[in-house]
Each structure stands twice: as structure tokens, then as C-alpha cells.
């Protein structure tokens, strides 16, 4: 245990050195041009810290990498963040502090709640483009959230991709049925109504809806409900790990041959690491290639090299890291397009640049060229757990929704 503590101490010290190095090095690299600031309300502690730590690492590493490439059109990049503990009020305070002191061009929001709460201020300031951890469907409403985008498909689109995959598994007109299991949170409920509508369009019957407390203690009663309807597929949303494991184990103990699927935050390697063999066959929709996938590409290779360079002992990097890196990639592309067009970095100009992204090659982070639709990247792929290999493997082609 003490070795573990020492190891963590070394990592923290390493992280601190890196942050210090960035703070010192960025101005030195500034040449003559003003730095472009990536701001962030990052949940390094609290309930979302398991992802926040990796999000922070992804943004830090991307900043180092882009600066090593000469910055954005010669402008160095600075990453300025505050820990929020995943609390909306602290995220708002962090935004006010960072926007007051550093004028960030882009900003990472740590939750849907924060991104909704800050929308009016963001709109009135009109000089920052925001994305973050949220894939909330509501944030793709351009009227209300003109300066916010989703770094992938929104949750409804994720359900759309999952349902298209399920529909493709129907044999001879025998369409599989599905049950939705989601947490009793804004996050959990987000895609359900749109998911039901999409299922109806595809001819998929939703045979049961189960709502649980987030991180529910006991789900045996819910499992009994599912046993009565014997769904072909169960789609989870609004969880990270528990109670997915309990649903899968108990339903298999009952002899059901149901297949289990989940959305972005329910599709990390954490599920394999913690569930072991029980995770075998679990499927998730993921808009990015996994860090340990067999896919490649110049940007994916650069990501792996930078990750290795910044912390050689870290090994596998979770989906939060990939997501943060992709966020920063999009910010870079948007800033570059805006500057190339000779425009100021205002919210309107950056939103316009974002909307112009079409058939964009992400260098292997996403396996196909992507096009922005309604401030999101509606693309993803279904991956299945191979527990023996300890990783996700693709079981569908990339699906780009129109």
C-alpha cells in the first residue's frame, strides 16, 4: 500500500512538474503572437473524478503536443483549468475566474448542468466556444446554446446508432426487441424519449423500461421484471459501472441469452478491468477508436506517442482521455479555420467555423471522415468486449447518422 502511495505521489509530482513546465514554457514559445487559451472546469475530485483525472491528462497532453507542432498558426496554446469537484456552482465560479483572467477562446465544461447554467453568460459574452464531458441532446439546440457543441454524437444519436445496429441483427423479418435501463438522473433520462421514437421507426419493440437510482445498491427486483419480458437486448444509459454488472450477472444466472449494450460513459475499459470474464460480450457505442485498438492514423499515433511520453507508466488511456483530446482537436480546427478566414475569435465566428466542418479527417481518432450536424459529430461504432483479450473489438462499421 505504501508503495502505492509513493507511486501516486510520484505521479502527482510528475503532473505538477508538467503543469509548472507548461506554465513556464508556454510564454517562452509564444514567439510574437498572443497565446490562445483553452479553459476548463475539470472535475479532478468528486463523483466524476475517475474520468476528470484522465480528461485533464488528455487536455494537458494535447496542449503539449500542439505546442510542439508550433501551436495554432504560430499562436502558442495555454491550458488553464480549475478543479470543480463536479459541482455546478464551483464550475461556474471557475469559468468566471478563468474567463476574467485569461479570456479563453474555448472551454471544457464538466457537466450538462454546468453547460446549461452558464449558457446565458456564455451567450452574452460571445467570445468563447464550449464543449466538454456532456453529450446531452439538449445542448444541440442551436437557438438556446449557439456557442456549445458535442464532441461526438449526442446521447439520442448514440441510441440511434445502437438501435440501427440492433435492427441490422434482425433475421428474416424477426426484429429483436429491446429494454432500456437508465439512471434516474437528467443524464440517464436524456435519450429515452427519442430512443423510443427511433425504435418505433425501425420496428423495434421496447418491451420494458427500468429506472434505477444512480449506482443502485440492489437491482434484483428490476432483474425479475426483465426476466418476465426476456428482452433480446438491454441498453444501459446513465451509468459508469454499477449496476450494469449486476444486471448482466443475474440475468445470465437466470439463463437469459440477452445481449447488453451501453453508451459512451458506460463503455470504458473499466468495465472489463472490474468485471473480468463477466464482461464478455458486452457492447458499447464509441465515437473514437480505443487507445488499444488495432486502428491507426497520424493523429492516433501522435496521441499514443504523447501519452507515452508524458507518463510512460500509465499504459492504457481511458475514453475520457480520448474524448478530451478530441475536444481539443476540434477547438484547434475551429480556431485555425477562424484565423485562416481572417476573422476574430468570437463565439459567432467559431460556431460558423465549426458548422463548416465537413468530411474532416481526424487522423484515426475517428475511423471515417466526419461532418458536423447541428453542433455534434453524429458518428460511432459498436464495439464488443473480448474478455480474454481484455479489450473492445469492433463489431460494426462506422455509422454516420445523417
Amino acid at each position, binding site marked *: 500500500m505504501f508503495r502505492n502511495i509513493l507511486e501516486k505521489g510520484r505521479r502527482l509530482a510528475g503532473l505538477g512538474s508538467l503543469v509548472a513546465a507548461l506554465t513556464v514554457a508556454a510564454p517562452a514559445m509564444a514567439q510574437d503572437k498572443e497565446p490562445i487559451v483553452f479553459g476548463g472546469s475539470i472535475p479532478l475530485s468528486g463523483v466524476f473524478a475517475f474520468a476528470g483525472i484522465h480528461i485533464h491528462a488528455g487536455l494537458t497532453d494535447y496542449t503539449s503536443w500542439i505546442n510542439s507542432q508550433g501551436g495554432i498558426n504560430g499562436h502558442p496554446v495555454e491550458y488553464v483549468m480549475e478543479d470543480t469537484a463536479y459541482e455546478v456552482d464551483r464550475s461556474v465560479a471557475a469559468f468566471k475566474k478563468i474567463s476574467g483572467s485569461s479570456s479563453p477562446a474555448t472551454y471544457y465544461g464538466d457537466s450538462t448542468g454546468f453547460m446549461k447554467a452558464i449558457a446565458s453568460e456564455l451567450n452574452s459574452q460571445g467570445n468563447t466556444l464550449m464543449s466538454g464531458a456532456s453529450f446531452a441532446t439538449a445542448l444541440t439546440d442551436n437557438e438556446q446554446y449557439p456557442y456549445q457543441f458535442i464532441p461526438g454524437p449526442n446521447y439520442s444519436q448514440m441510441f440511434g446508432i445502437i438501435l440501427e445496429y440492433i435492427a441490422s441483427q434482425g433475421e428474416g423479418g424477426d426484429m429483436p426487441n429491446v429494454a432500456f435501463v437508465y439512471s434516474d438522473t437528467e443524464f440517464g433520462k436524456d435519450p429515452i424519449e427519442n430512443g423510443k421514437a427511433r425504435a418505433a421507426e425501425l420496428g423495434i419493440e421496447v418491451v420494458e423500461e427500468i429506472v434505477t*437510482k444512480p*449506482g443502485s445498491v440492489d437491482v434484483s*427486483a428490476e432483474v425479475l421484471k426483465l*426476466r418476465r419480458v426476456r428482452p433480446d437486448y438491454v441498453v444501459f444509459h446513465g451509468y*459508469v459501472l454499477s449496476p450494469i454488472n449486476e444486471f448482466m450477472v443475474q440475468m445470465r444466472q*437466470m439463463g437469459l441469452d440477452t445481449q447488453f449494450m451501453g453508451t459512451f460513459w458506460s463503455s470504458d475499459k473499466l468495465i472489463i478491468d*472490474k468485471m473480468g470474464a463477466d464482461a464478455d460480450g458486452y457492447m458499447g457505442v464509441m465515437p473514437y477508436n480505443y487507445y488499444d485498438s488495432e486502428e491507426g492514423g497520424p493523429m492516433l499515433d501522435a496521441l499514443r506517442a504523447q501519452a507515452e511520453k508524458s507518463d510512460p507508466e500509465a499504459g492504457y488511456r481511458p475514453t475520457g482521455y480520448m474524448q478530451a483530446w478530441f475536444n481539443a482537436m476540434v477547438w484547434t480546427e475551429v480556431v485555425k479555420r477562424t484565423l485562416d478566414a481572417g476573422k476574430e475569435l468570437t463565439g459567432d465566428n467559431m460556431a460558423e467555423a465549426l458548422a463548416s466542418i465537413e468530411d474532416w479527417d481526424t487522423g484515426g481518432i475517428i475511423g471515417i471522415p466526419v461532418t458536423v450536424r447541428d453542433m455534434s459529430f453524429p458518428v460511432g461504432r459498436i464495439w464488443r468486449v473480448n474478455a480474454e483479450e481484455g479489450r473492445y473489438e469492433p463489431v460494426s462499421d462506422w455509422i454516420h447518422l445523417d
Partner: protein
Amino acid sequence: MDWLFFGEISLAGLAMGGLYALIALGFVIIYKATRVINFAIGEIMMFAAYLFLAFAGGMELSPWIALPMAVIGGSILGGVIEKTMIRPMLGESPISVVMVTIGIASILVGLVEFIWTADPQLLPNFLPREPVFIGELYLAPKIAYGFLIGSALLIIYLLYFRFSRGGVALRATASDQAAAYSMGINVRRVFNMAWVFGSLAASLAGVLVAATGGLSPQFGIIGLSVLVVVIVGGLDSILGALVAGVFIGWLETVAGAYLGGEYRMPATFLVLAIILVIRPYGLFGTHEIERV
């Protein structure tokens, strides 16, 4: 009405209620003896569950060795907390003591995040995985065996408090501290013992609940939800903790199954509201309870 389904749901709820009763027991023992409302009970549960993870997962000990080690570790933690942080607060206002327990809870959360990271965890499997059938009724094995282990500890506790010298001392102190002191009972030792026993019950419940629902630094919130149980049962009533624990577990599960998961908490809080109106001291509590 599908009676088989109702029976299975009820069985699952009663079994889960048994674990609630165990947590509530930990809460009540401490309150009954020391008049301290321990808001860190959930975090003590969490800490014991992480100890189990360290012993059974990290050190790869047999789960059946790791379980008593983790439970004893949790109870020692309770004893240390009492001696170093609660005892110096003797004579201070109840609010101050409550605030100390809230602070202890935050410290424990920070400690486990530092040692075990903020990642969600699953405990190594140590309970049999074969489905349990009682007649035709199915019961999830983790819940069934968790209930059996928890019930065994409950019975041991009840016998101990009824027949042992320590149990009599604890009950005497709970009834009248001054009288107990004048009769030669070491009241300070009883206080410490109450924290050790209360934490032991909570620690066992922590490992059993985490074995079912997973573990994270936010696990301690379960301790707060059990506050409903102890208020309904009566803050100073062991019988109340047992009855209310089982009842709330059953109600929560039945409401979740028939009305939907979003009605689990409203159903229990409705009961809480009714109890507070008609019997503010709980179903089995004494009238003199001081509300803080």
C-alpha cells in the same frame, strides 16, 4: 395480480431490508450509548469495503480471511475516531459533534480517493453464484447470502446485549449515564465500545452491500439514506432499527417494481413524513429524543 412476481419482489426487498437493518443498528448503537448522531457511518462502511478490496483484491488473501480483517479494521477505525475526535467534544453542543462527524466523513472520502483512486470498483466475488430458490421464488444469491451473514451478526449482537456484562453496561449507560457511572461502570469505555460495535455492524454491512452494488468514494451516501430507517424506527431503538430496516427495504423494492425506480425514494420519504407527523420520535423511539 401475479403473486409469484409479488413474492419474489417482496423476498428481494426483505433481504435488502435486512442489510439496511444492519447499517441502522450501527447507527443506533452509537446514538443510544453516546447520543452522537454519526453522519460518518456510511463512510466507515465505505472504508471497510475498501479494506476488503485491499485484502482480497490487492493482497489476494482468501475472501473469508479478508472479510473479518476488513470488518475488524472498520471497527478499529470507529474506536479510534471516538477516542481521538469525539471524546474531546464531550460537553460540547450536539451540533458541534455532528459537524465533527461530517468532517470525518469528508476526510475518509479524501483518504480512499488518495489510496484507491476515484475509480468505481467491484469487490472480488466471494459469495456463491448459484441462484437461490425458496420454493418457486427466485432470490439473487448475493442478496440471499448477504442477508444470512448479516442476520447471523444481528443475532450475535442481540444475544450479547441481552446476556453479556458488556451488553448490560451498554444498556445501563444508555438508560442513565450518571447512574451507570455511580454504579462503577466505566462510561468512557462504554462509549468507545459503542463506537467499536456500531462501526463493526456498519463495516460488515458495507462489505456485503458493496459486494452487491459496487464501490466508489461516494458509497457512503447509502449511510445517509439509512437515516430514514433510523428516524422511522426511532433513533434510540434497536428493535426500531430492525423493523424499520426490513420494512423500508421491502417498501423501496416494491415501489420500484410496481411504480418505477423513480418512486423508490419518494415512497420511503412519504413514510418518513407520515411518521414524523404522527410519532416524531419514531415507531419505537423514546419521547425524550433531542432533535438537532
